[in-house]
């Protein structure tokens, strides 16, 4: 007889809370969006003034001068006229500026400018035939000039739209940049939230208590998902789409102080990244080559060594904990710090590696590992460090895979009289193959993204030693703002990297179907 009264009440509270919250936040967002829009319009107006002044001034001077010069063929007179213009130029400019800011229309401004210039010419020419000719000419073409100048001024001014201003404003000098830049998004979000709130209100009033409670229950999962998805939407989904689009936007200007503005759509970024410019080295390709070699050498070696070590660690040994600690330490330590030690160990004059080599064969020359002109030597450094630092993680995975193999399989095999190596190759390896396959894929994916290693080993400038990588190329294009770098290139390079990783992984998965034990 007593129904569960608690449940409906909770659902009700939830719906009401959502109606209120959505309305509030929606209003706030819309308000900010409107504010940002107003700021944008104001900024556009402000940006237009200098352009208008400039256009009015230049057009008036040039066209008027041409008309005056057309009244005579005497070069001396013409140069006197030009002098007249020069004398009055500054005051005309100031006058135009003042009049424009106080709201005068084009006609007034142009007529006033013309008047001042004529004064200036009068001063240089003095009374006489030439002056009369000029004044007559000016009177006759005055109206035509006004409309022509006005037209081209409007053209120049119309080119300055809120959109163009938004893309060319500078982050550091514009107050409220964020609100202005994102005002459209804010408006959409705000309106959307208000609409949701309205929808919920409508649903509320068209339902009875049971229905309302059920509404609350439907909303509930989204509450739990919201914090998570806000992050995913802003920092994963949106960037993915944006970068894909950006890779097709050419001459994208760097976004630190000048927001993104681009020249046109096209494959120019990809062309530059993949084919470079005639006569210069294609840095991306060099980076790609380095990265590819790195992946193809490091991953298999690391896997092989790890299988061996994991196998050894899996035997029943004492001091298991101690060994594990030793093997896994490199994994938790900061790569930057560890890279520095290796850099010191590879030092040409005082490094440990050269000391070891000398110890083994006293007659050999010390190798300049990090600054060698022999590219293979530099790659060797990267590979050695890469293998070493990837061992712990790989061993952990393989060890875990080994431990998942049922002991009784070994027992049965031993009873059958199989030797250790037979057991290893016929039982252990096949059963371990899924883990090996997984390790190969995971390690190659992260090997393609190698960045910190080259930066630390070569003291921040791997490019000086031809040791760029693809990831480095991307980062370099983001942070360098000169003519030869751009976000567009970074975007194109990132897309290429993504595709390469994807294809490589797919190929691996396909091949693995053949040898991985299902």
């Amino acid at each position, binding site marked *: 007889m007593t129904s569960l009264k608690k449940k409906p009440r909770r659902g009700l509270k939830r719906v009401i809370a959502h109606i209120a919250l959505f309305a509030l936040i929606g209003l706030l967002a819309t308000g900010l969006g409107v504010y940002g829009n107003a700021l944008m319009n104001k900024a556009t107006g402000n940006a237009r003034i200098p352009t208008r002044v400039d256009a009015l001034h230049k057009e008036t001077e040039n066209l008027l001068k041409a008309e005056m010069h057309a009244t005579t063929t005497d070069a001396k007179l013409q140069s006197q006229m030009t002098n007249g213009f020069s004398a009055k130029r500054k005051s005309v400019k100031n006058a135009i500026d003042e009049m424009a800011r106080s709201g005068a229309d084009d006609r007034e401004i142009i007529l006033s400018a013309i008047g001042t210039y004529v004064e200036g010419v009068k001063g240089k020419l003095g009374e006489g035939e030439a002056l009369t000719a000029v004044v007559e000419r000016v009177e006759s073409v005055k109206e035509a000039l006004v409309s022509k100048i006005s037209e081209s001024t409007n053209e120049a001014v119309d080119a300055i739209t809120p959109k163009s201003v938004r893309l060319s404003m500078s982050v550091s000098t514009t107050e409220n940049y*964020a609100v202005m830049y994102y005002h459209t998004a804010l408006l959409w979000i705000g309106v959307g939230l208000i609409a949701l709130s309205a929808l919920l209100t409508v649903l509320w009033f068209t339902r009875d208590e049971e229905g309302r409670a059920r509404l609350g229950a439907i909303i509930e999962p989204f509450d739990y*998902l919201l914090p998570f998805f806000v992050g995913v939407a802003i920092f994963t989904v949106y960037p993915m789409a944006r970068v894909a689009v950006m890779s097709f936007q050419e001459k994208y200007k760097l976004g630190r102080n000048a927001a993104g503005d681009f020249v046109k759509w096209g494959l120019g970024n990809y062309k530059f990244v993949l084919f470079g410019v005639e006569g210069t080295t294609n840095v991306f390709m060099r980076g790609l080559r380095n990265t590819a070699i790195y992946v193809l050498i490091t991953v298999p070696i690391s896997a092989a060594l790890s299988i061996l070590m994991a196998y050894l660690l899996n035997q029943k040994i004492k001091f298991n904990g101690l060994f594990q600690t030793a093997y896994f330490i490199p994994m938790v*330590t900061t790569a930057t710090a560890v890279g520095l030690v290796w850099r010191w160990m590879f030092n040409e004059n005082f490094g*440990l590696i050269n000391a070891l080599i000398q110890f083994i064969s006293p007659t050999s020359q010390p190798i300049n590992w990090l600054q060698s002109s022999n590219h293979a030597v530099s790659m060797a450094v990267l590979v050695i460090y890469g293998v070493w630092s990837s061992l712990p993680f790989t061993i952990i995975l393989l060890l875990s895979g080994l431990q998942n193999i049922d002991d009784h399989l070994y027992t049965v095999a031993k009873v059958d009289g199989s030797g250790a190596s037979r057991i290893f190759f016929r039982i252990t390896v096949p059963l371990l193959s899924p883990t090996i396959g997984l390790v190969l894929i995971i390690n190659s994916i992260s090997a393609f993204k190698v960045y910190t290693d080259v930066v630390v080993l070569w003291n921040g400038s791997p490019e000086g030693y031809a040791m760029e990588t693809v990831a480095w190329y991307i980062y370099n294009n983001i942070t360098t703002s000169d003519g030869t770098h751009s976000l567009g290139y970074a975007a194109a390079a990132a897309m290429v990297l993504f595709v390469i990783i994807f294809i490589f992984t797919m190929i691996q998965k396909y091949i693995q179907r053949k040898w991985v034990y299902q």
Partner: protein
Amino acid sequence: MTRRIVFRTLLYIALFIGAVVMVFPFYWMISSSFKTAAEMNVFPPRMVPNNWLNFDNYVEAWHTAPFATYFVNSIVVCVSSVAVVMFTTILAAFAFSRLNFPGRDLLFTLLLSLMMIPFELLVITNYQTMVRTGLYDTLYALVLPFTSSIFYTYILRNFFLSIPDSLYYSAQVDGSGNWSYLWKVMVPIARPSLVTILLLNAMASWNSFMWPKLVIAHDEFRTLPYGLFTFTTESGSHNEIIMAAATLVVMPMLILFLFARKQIVRGVARGGIKG
């Protein structure tokens, strides 16, 4: 019988050599940090410093660069990041496992596919977003882009799925709602998984280098790895001081590892992706 002994000895020798190879760079780092410049610049290099208690390099490093600031920044960022991520992950994993809504499983599969996208691609826009919202060169920029982790949600969801339905239903009969069920029942049960996520997240945050290098310009907001890097590029070739600084940076994680080794190893094995 002798065969066995030979094998066992070889086994231990191999393991020992391997262990030395893995650990030696750290020994080298620490021992070098106690050497003087004169001791460093000799060939062949010396295994043991003259004076194991020569803290000069540490003092020098501490004074040359604001390691205390870097340290504090790293801690702040690490703790904030872990707290936020735990919150979003627990809620989302709960929604994807215990709650029902249309398209739940399809959405989750889509989410998993997003994991494939390399951060190097997202970095470009995330960088721009940080600049445009005025968060460039602040600690917020180090925390905000990483508030959601699909990977950790995946791990936790799997664990939540293994908690029997009966617990949920009996809690419902008792009149508890989803929220209290989540926090009073599921979270305590999921503690091992949560500890794993916490450790992996903490390690990733502490060791991150690439992103801070991109979005931080001022010394006062640098975290340890990036601060260390700036320190070395600027302090030239005083390697003994660099080694001291490196040791300082590595110590916290090293100590954490010594205490939490089992958890970390188990977590990595289960997760299958590096922290």
